[in-house]
């Protein structure tokens, strides 16, 4: 039996068929910055967002709880009163107290998520952006304007997929813009 196996190269053929199977199967390499991108799950803790309510008012009331709970003290909140300017216009926040300055130092932030746990109005939430590299240190400080802009990936979008993406490189840094329509499981 052993001799027959040797004469007809049974083991060799077994090995060759296995490698051929792998040769024609799909590769596990993700072409990450160029063509594909992995979208994180909803529970992922990436770049923070400041949310608005359905009428477009800022949810943040500048209570400074996030700044207090932050273990690296990377959040700076300076509150201000938001009354008396114009009563007819839509107020900017949900109460008469909003943040004058809201800054997160992303270099120091360790993305623990304590700030979103502490927030009483669910204003601050961790988003799903994880490409935070850039050329200068200016962009490492996320100000209120940056935090209030809506993100590419909506909060209700379920993650854990690989999608087609486009690699964009400009002066501010690099971004990989996902195309949410085509989802694909990655192994």
């Amino acid at each position, binding site marked *: 039996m052993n001799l027959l196996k040797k004469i007809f190269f049974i083991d060799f053929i077994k090995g060759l068929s296995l490698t051929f199977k792998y040769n024609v199967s799909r590769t*596990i390499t993700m*072409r990450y910055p160029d063509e594909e991108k992995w979208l994180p799950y909803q529970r992922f803790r990436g770049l923070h967002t400041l949310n608005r309510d359905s009428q477009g008012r800022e949810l943040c009331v500048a209570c400074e709880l996030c700044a207090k709970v932050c273990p690296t003290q990377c959040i700076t909140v300076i509150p201000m009163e938001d009354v008396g300017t114009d009563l007819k216009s839509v107020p900017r926040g949900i109460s008469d107290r909003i943040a004058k300055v809201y800054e997160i130092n992303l270099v120091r932030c360790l993305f623990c998520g304590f700030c979103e746990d502490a927030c009483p109005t669910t204003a601050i939430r961790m988003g799903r952006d994880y490409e935070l590299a850039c050329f200068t240190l200016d962009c490492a400080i996320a100000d209120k304007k940056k935090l209030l802009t809506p993100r590419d990936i909506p909060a209700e979008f379920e993650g854990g997929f690989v999608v087609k993406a486009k690699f964009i490189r400009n002066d501010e840094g690099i971004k990989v813009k996902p195309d949410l329509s085509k989802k694909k499981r990655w192994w």
Partner: protein
Amino acid sequence: MPDVNTLIEVALIIVKVVIVSMILFSLPLPLTWLERKIAGHIQLRLGPFRVGPHGVLQPLADMIKLMFKEDITPYKADKWLFRLSPIVAMVPAFAVYATIPFGNTVTVPFINKEISLHIADMNVGILYVLAIGGITVYGIMLGGWASNSKYALLGGIRASAQMVSYEIALTFSCVGVVMIANSLSLVDIVHTQKGAILGILPNWNIFYQPLGFIIFLIAALAETNRIPFDLPEDEGTLAAGYHVEYSGMRFAFFMLTEYLAMVTVSVLSVILFFGGWNSPPLVPETLNNLIPPIFWFIGKVAVFIYFFMWLRFTLPRYRYDQLMTIGWKILLPLSLLNILITGLLLI
């Protein structure tokens, strides 16, 4: 003053030589790419992907890199031999192609002349190929000796021992084919493989000489220093074997030799056992007239090249004593047995 016809013949031969050597010089570029791609896909990777679409320009980038690399000659190395040996290894690899027939005769437009697709139809073609192919090992040995390095020397010694052992089995496995064809000329060997057995199977020597083919394939693998017999450049124990001290273009010459050797054994197995440029018999006549015979030749060679690369990423390396055992105790008696059986059947 020779007459015009002789001059045209000479010019044609020169043109053929130039074209063949140009093709052979550029052949390692796609082959390195292919090898890395196959390696990648077998290991579930992608292989080179960044330079050009699907990384096809990667070998060009590598070539530029190799050209600009510093050409180091080791201290206390035998300088003259060190510089000579890549050339000694490379020239025979090219010289082999003087007698390889790539296809039947073709009529070239404009000059309306029948041209045979081989440089020379020697009547001892197969002998010439095996003899010249065997010279390559001198380059490897000299390179290993001249480098003044233990690893290179061991690689060179291993190469010489391996070549001596497997050259015998390789040559004997070709004898069966020669006996069937009644000729040593490669063109004649291909011509005898025309037609079909029972109308279905092609009349190729593989069906008459299965044992001879297996011996030829294994011995050829050893001759080309490829896995599972790549002991001369055993990365695990000898760093890079005989070319450990080489860099830049000299290293590239050794790589070129190695790839050309692989192409040579693919071409030889196609010519000897797979009917050269003959098409398989079940191909319809109209299609056969449309496709030039050289297509079949290149296609078969490509299959063999893929097979060698596939094998490389499947099998581990043999131990040195196993290599010798396979060569002397198994392949040599079997190839003699093959000659005996062929002789008995031909009577």
